């Protein structure tokens, strides 16, 4: 018996390794195919935040905290300090068309609805927090009480019954404008089409589809 590996054994080992990879890929394709996350071309809704009006009072943040019954101090909305002119920038899930949180989730717990809203199936989430670190907007929150990661879900139950998300209702200054992006006559469509309302940091490449900002 020679001491170096024989050609036959080497070929066998490599093929066996390849077979294992193929089996893994095949099994996952079958399993993962059931919950595909087909991204719609356009989001049905738009949420525009006018930072020239926003005073940073935090009413939206508190309304979100209340609505979602979140632990102490937690909200899906946070305020980012700005240095050049703007007073404040409220940031939440942008509902990206190319959401990195959906791609990186090993359990396929994050998905898009037909309206382009990004949701979390908290029954699948294992709490690895990969999505939390992968979101360039840092919009996702780990809830220690239940061990899952969740985020702004656009109060889809209100929205689908014709009402507005809690944060929009809470804003007394009118800095939050909500409407149908698929209706060209709506206020949000006009603001977006005119170029006044824009996605935040489009260079991240995630294609924020719902949330837009008026910066000046």
């Amino acid at each position, binding site marked *: 018996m020679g001491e170096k*590996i024989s050609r036959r054994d080497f070929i066998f080992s490599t093929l066996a390794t390849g077979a294992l990879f193929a089996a893994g890929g095949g099994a996952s*394709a079958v399993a993962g195919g059931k919950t595909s996350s087909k991204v719609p071309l356009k989001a049905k809704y738009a949420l525009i935040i006018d930072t020239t009006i926003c005073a940073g009072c935090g009413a939206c943040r508190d309304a979100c905290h209340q609505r979602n019954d979140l632990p102490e101090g937690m909200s899906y909305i946070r305020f980012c300090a700005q240095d050049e002119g703007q007073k404040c920038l409220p940031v939440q899930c942008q509902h990206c068309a190319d959401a990195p949180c959906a791609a*990186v989730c*090993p*359990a396929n717990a994050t998905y898009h609805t037909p309206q382009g809203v990004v949701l979390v199936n908290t029954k699948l989430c294992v709490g*690895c927090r990969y999505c939390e670190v992968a979101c360039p907007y840092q919009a996702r929150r*780990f809830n220690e009480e239940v*061990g899952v990661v969740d985020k702004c879900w656009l109060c889809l139950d209100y929205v689908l019954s014709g009402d507005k998300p809690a944060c929009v209702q809470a804003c007394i200054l009118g800095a939050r404008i909500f409407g149908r992006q698929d209706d060209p006559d709506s206020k949000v469509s006009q603001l977006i089409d005119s170029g006044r309302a824009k996605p935040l940091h489009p260079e991240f490449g995630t294609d924020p589809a719902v949330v837009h900002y008026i910066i000046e």
Partner: protein
Amino acid sequence: MHVQEVWHWLAAIYLFLGGLGAGAFLVAAVVELTGERYKQEFCPITLVGSTIAGPAVGIGAFLLVLELGAGLREPWRIPYMFTHFTSVMTWGIWILSLFVPIAFAYGFLEVMDTYPKAWIWVTGKLRFKVLKRLPVRRLKRIMAVMGSVFALATGIYTGVLLCGVGPAIPLWSAPLWPGLSIPLLPILFLVSAISTGMGLTIDMTATISQPETHRRFHSLPVIHMTAIGLEAILVGLLLYSANSLGGAGAMSVNLIASGHMRTVFWIGFVATGLVYPFAVHAYAIGAGKHSIASGIGSGVGIVFAGLMLRYLILTSGMPPVL
């Protein structure tokens, strides 16, 4: 200025163990497949490398599971983690799940091969006579090839996991050179894995149990110094590349090189894991011999620095300022 607060020291340990186990396995596999293993009865490099690999990566994977939130309370969700192939973490779970059994099997066979009396005892206890005729050496070679593929994958995966967050943490996704689209971290973590693997199996082990190892394998110190030198270059490139990104990337570099993490970086990593081992090996080549103290010292330094490197990169990662 705010660093990411999601993954901390436990994740650093898990990434470190994955790299160490993968590197140790690769060193053992090379010694096995080149036939060097069989020039003597007892080869500490393959013995330590093969027996450490499975447990190291296995414990690392166990730590990953411990880090899960709902995954611990509802463990039936964990199989879902094997299904989503757009996620690097899914790839990692597959790679680890296949590597660990192969590594354990190879380690077991290497122990049996090294201690024939143990093999006789084990096969005596088992009812299936066919096991006594198992072609141990042939199986070992097959395990070494298969395991090496997964070991390489494991070493690269730890870096791909981090750079998979893309623009969310500029330090982790810094390219090999500004403007290139080749990420640097997977290469760095693989080189670090091999370096820590060599530190453990050669410096720490062979130096104690077989001091003549270094005399027999003249190229070992040179190979080791090349790995250390390469690691130094890659870390330098990482700092340069991340700094060139500006914003959060530059802030991370600042934190590492001159900020809060500078002691861990310059003392815990550069001095302990690069300068000292490199100098010790250079001296050994010049003096023509390797002393036990410097061999173990160098090995401990390299292994410790491997952990420090991962800890540094994790805790200095900063999301972009919005």
